[in-house]
């Protein structure tokens, strides 16, 4: 009888052990699939949540006066507006930066007091990425108005306000933020350039860093090097608190995965290995008999390892299904902001079917060697 035929008959005979091995493998695969789907969801949620913290990089004209910038909150120098397209076109830019958003910002007088005019151009994301643009995408002739400024001007959505002779329709009144955003007037970049008489100019490019640094790596130095190559007339300023929060959040998620995956693998392997050892122990007389009948080590090892591989396939299929359901049920409750993005990942099924049988075979390797080394004389002697 073929080895495969023997394995299937043995599995039918030792149903309880086989079921427990499948359960162990299915549990391991299910946890890994769930962890993988949820880790992706966590990464997406982290990205989204940290993105909502705002831009953490400000790319400024190189000749900006730091004192003036820090005192006023914006640069009084400008860059040509095509700086953003040049930066986007430079090789390797999107390794370090993303969501490149040109801006022209100036302090103006509105309603007899200070306000900040902030003209925003469209965000540029990495090639092939389908990311939602950060910040606002404001049509020409429209304005988003900060909470305090709206109260000062008594402006409501639909109202028209006059900004240095240019009429703008109020599209949105922003919620109170407790920051200088409350006196900010957002317009399209073109409108801001027109109002300020600075056509074709921007005061900065806002961006997010793409670097997932460990605590020891100097992200800012890498960003500066990257900018030096692609846009030498600019300098980059990192808003440290936001950058650190992003990095910490991402590193926490990675640490969690790095802890959970080996733990699941070790527990799963131990479980499968113990069950395989119990199976081999129970089958010692049979193994002794196969030896006596002239079966070599390869056949004996094949009976144990082949069994593990077959159960691995069953465990992978079951584990993928269970793990996916687990992630789809629990995921939206854990990651509510990006719940819609949590979906089954069929590629994990192929990975599971590829890896779980190998994993089961590795976990059963020691019991297989015990079977090969089993002395038939121990179980076959009568006296």
């Amino acid at each position, binding site marked *: *009888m073929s080895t495969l035929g*023997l394995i299937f*008959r*043995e599995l*039918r*005979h*030792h149903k309880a052990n086989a079921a427990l091995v499948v359960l162990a493998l299915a549990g391991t695969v299910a946890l890994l699939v769930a962890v993988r789907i949820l880790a992706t969801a966590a990464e997406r949620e982290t990205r989204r949540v940290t993105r909502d913290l705002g831009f953490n990089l400000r790319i400024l004209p190189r000749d900006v006066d730091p004192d003036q910038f820090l005192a006023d909150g914006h640069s009084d120098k400008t860059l040509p507006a095509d700086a953003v397209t040049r930066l986007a076109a430079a090789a390797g830019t999107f390794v370090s930066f993303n969501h490149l958003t040109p801006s022209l910002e100036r302090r103006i007088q509105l309603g007899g007091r200070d306000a900040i005019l902030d003209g925003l151009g469209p965000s540029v994301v990495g090639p092939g990425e389908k990311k939602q643009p950060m910040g606002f995408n404001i049509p020409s002739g429209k304005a988003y108005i900060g909470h305090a400024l709206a109260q000062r001007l008594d402006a409501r959505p639909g109202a028209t306000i006059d900004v240095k002779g240019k009429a703008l329709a109020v599209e949105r009144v922003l919620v109170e933020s407790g920051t200088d955003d409350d006196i900010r007037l957002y317009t399209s970049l073109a409108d801001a350039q027109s109002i300020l008489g600075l056509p074709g100019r921007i005061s900065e490019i806002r961006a997010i860093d793409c670097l997932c640094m460990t605590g020891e790596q100097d992200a800012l130095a890498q960003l500066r090097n990257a900018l030096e190559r692609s846009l030498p007339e600019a300098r980059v300023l990192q808003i440290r608190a936001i950058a650190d929060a992003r990095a910490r959040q991402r590193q926490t998620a990675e640490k969690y995965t790095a802890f959970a995956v080996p733990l699941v693998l070790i527990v799963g392997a131990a479980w499968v290995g113990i069950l395989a050892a119990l199976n081999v122990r129970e089958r010692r*007389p*049979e193994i*002794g*008999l196969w*030896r*006596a*009948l*002239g*079966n*070599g*080590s390869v056949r004996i090892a094949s009976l144990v390892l082949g069994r593990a591989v077959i159960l691995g396939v069953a465990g992978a299929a079951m584990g993928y299904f269970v793990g996916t359901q687990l992630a789809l049920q629990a995921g939206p409750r854990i990651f509510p902001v990006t719940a819609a993005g949590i979906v089954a990942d069929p590629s994990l099924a192929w990975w599971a079917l590829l890896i779980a049988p190998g994993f089961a075979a590795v976990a059963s390797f020691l019991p297989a060697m015990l079977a090969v080394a089993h*002395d*038939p*004389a121990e*179980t*076959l*002697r*009568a*006296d």
Partner: protein
Amino acid sequence: MVSCDHLVRTFAARAGTVAALDDVSFRVERGEFVAIHGASGSGKSTLLLTLGGMLRPTSGAVSIDGRDLYSLSAGARTRFRASTIGFVFQLFHLVPYLDVRQNILAGVPRPDADARARVDRLIEELGLGPRAESLPSTLSAGERQRVALARALAKQPPLILADEPTGNLDPVNAGVVFRRLADYQRAGGTVLVVTHGNDAAPYATRTLRLDHGRLAARLTTEVL
């Protein structure tokens, strides 16, 4: 056919080293039916496993058909055993998840159509026809031993080694087993049986006695 020279096999025990076989030498010629008689613990099973290439002697040599068994590599010894020796054990040692026919076929290294036909004949000869599709757990002790005997005979080995083949059987079933072994011997096969009783003696051409690991005397069936 079988030659063993000065076989010694010792085991470590709490009280020190125990010699299960102590300078055992004898020869079995082709076509003989040799019964080795001895009490429990006399070293019978150790002798049989040593002759079967499954238990390396501490010293001494075993030759079968002129080949020194323990000078062969493990793989070569396994192949030699598969082609040359049929085993019958006291505890039957049937594969619990294979039915009667499959258990018998398991003894044949390459089961071709001839082997399958031979297995079917053995099943009928040994009265196992109605149980051919049954699992060992549903068989009586006598039926199990007949399956084990059929398994040993199925590959038509030149030598059959039987370890207490009737130890768990009633006299009727014991007679069936020994008669079949005697038939095999008369057809040219060589049989070596170890047993604690003397029930093999009427079928044996020669009987030896093993006592505390030593061959004590050569007995004839007439003496027994």
